[in-house]
């Protein structure tokens, strides 16, 4: 479903945000991209969305190389990928219903189709009674639910989430994760960047650890398990000693 092949991203000024990253994500998988702030998780998400030009490598989405498609085709790519962000990215001047419906308006769906589809997805995220509210009238958790509803309303095969629980308290985060889990069970591939240990540990899904732009660990069913910051990490590095009360890395490197 998603394949990153030797992906490298170097920003102007020389900052390397992705180093030769190779990843293969199958249909229906739930993958956590974990790592400290600035490790390059968000850059990978942005590259998969074609929000940034790639420096080297290839990214395949549903069998298509998205690094070479022309700009005018990018909207079509994005329509097949749902996105959820830490800051919700809701349109402040639109109601909850309109925000979710917008993703379908973009596709040119008729209103007769949009209404039931939006109502259904609002029901799924538990906001069926708040369709006429504006984002500012909702709590953070509710706003993120709207964001998830918008990402899922046209049933995309892939959903990318960049720190979706970053602005939420633990209890609310659990609710969002349950929602994402439910969406994943419908067959949607989910890639989620996070540095929330508790969530990753609780979900027990595939964990890809990113450090300084490179993949340093890829566990099929793993825990967050941070890698020590003060020890240089290489692909074959032995499990690092725990520094913050957590155990060291137990998974090997893919690359």
């Amino acid at each position, binding site marked *: 479903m998603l394949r990153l092949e030797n992906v490298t991203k170097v920003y102007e000024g020389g900052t390397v945000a992705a180093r030769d990253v190779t990843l293969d994500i199958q249909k229906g998988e739930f993958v956590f991209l974990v790592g400290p702030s600035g490790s390059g998780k968000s850059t990978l998400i942005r590259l998969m969305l074609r929000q940034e030009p790639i420096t080297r490598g290839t990214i395949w989405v549903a069998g298509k190389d998205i690094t070479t498609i022309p700009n*005018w085709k990018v909207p079509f790519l994005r329509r097949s990928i749902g*996105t959820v962000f830490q800051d919700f*990215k809701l349109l402040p001047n639109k109601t909850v219903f309109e925000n979710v419906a917008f993703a379908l308006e973009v*596709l040119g769906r*008729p209103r007769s189709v949009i209404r039931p589809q939006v109502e259904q997805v609002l029901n799924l995220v538990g906001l069926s009674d708040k369709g006429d509210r504006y984002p500012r009238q909702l709590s953070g958790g509710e706003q993120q639910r709207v964001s998830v509803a918008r990402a899922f309303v046209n049933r995309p095969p892939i959903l990318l989430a960049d720190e979706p629980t970053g602005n939420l308290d633990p209890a609310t985060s659990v609710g969002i994760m349950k929602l994402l889990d439910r969406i994943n069970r419908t067959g949607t591939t989910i890639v989620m960047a996070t540095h929330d240990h508790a969530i990753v540990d609780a979900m027990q899904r595939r964990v890809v650890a990113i450090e300084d732009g490179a993949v340093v660990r890829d566990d099929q069913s793993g825990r967050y398990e941070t890698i020590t910051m003060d020890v240089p990490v290489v692909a074959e590095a032995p499990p690092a000693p725990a520094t913050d009360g957590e155990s060291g890395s137990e998974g090997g490197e893919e690359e």
Partner: protein
Amino acid sequence: MSRLAFLMREAIVNLRRNALVVTGAVLAVFISLALAFGALVLNQLLVINTLAWQEGTHIVVFLKDTDEGGLSLDGQLQLRAEVESWDEVKAVRYVDKAGAYEEFKILFADRPDFVESINPTILPSSLRIELTDINLYRDVQFRLQANPAVKDVRSFGEGIEMLSNLSRVLNLLGIGLALVLGSAAVIMIANTIRMAIYARRDEVSIMKLVGASNWFIRVPFLLEGLIEGVLGAGLAVLTIWIASQNLQGVGDSIQLVQFTIPTEFFLRWGVLFVLFGAAAGVFGSLIGLSRYLREADGGARTGAA
């Protein structure tokens, strides 16, 4: 169809939500186009008045009496027929001595004693010549002066020529001013739309994120620009039309100057100005958007950094 309706709705909702910015854009178009249209109308007034002054007699030829070596009545009429046959001449009116005295009486109606002191026979008969083109007056004047039966030739050519030149210069100035102000309108609309987009850049980036194409994002902005342009231009035309209607009232009290502009002129140029306003709105929006949409695009592979 539903998509178009959605985009129309979006444009109208945006216009309502950004009332202040929209008012600014409409005013910008209104001021520029009102000045441009005003310049055009003033220019038209000048053309109308110059044309009015150009009408009528251009050259007066005073003929010698028979005792001064002039022609007989038949000869004078013959001369009139000859002059009338010239290509440069549109019409010739023969005014005999009696006719000249009648004109004289009208001219000095307020001084009857002076009129009475004049012997009607001393006033010469004359030819009043209207030319096809006022600029040809020199040639005609020269030929008539060479005629021995002619006492004197008076021409209004120089004055009218000067007025024509002035009109031409003002005409160019008016068109130049209209062009400059028209361009200013486009730039102001572009700027206003860019400001509106800047204020809504998050919104645009979210639209792109959910897969909206550039055209899908553009259309509501273009419609906004179009509506702003049409509103501003319409107001400008209406204002100048009202002003010119008021001027007509003033014109009634000043006999020499004509202040009436034909409705046809207002219709023709008014429609053109509204169309220009619409085009300026759309064009301004396109300029305002292009850079931002380009920046918001991720772009394909870059070279190695």
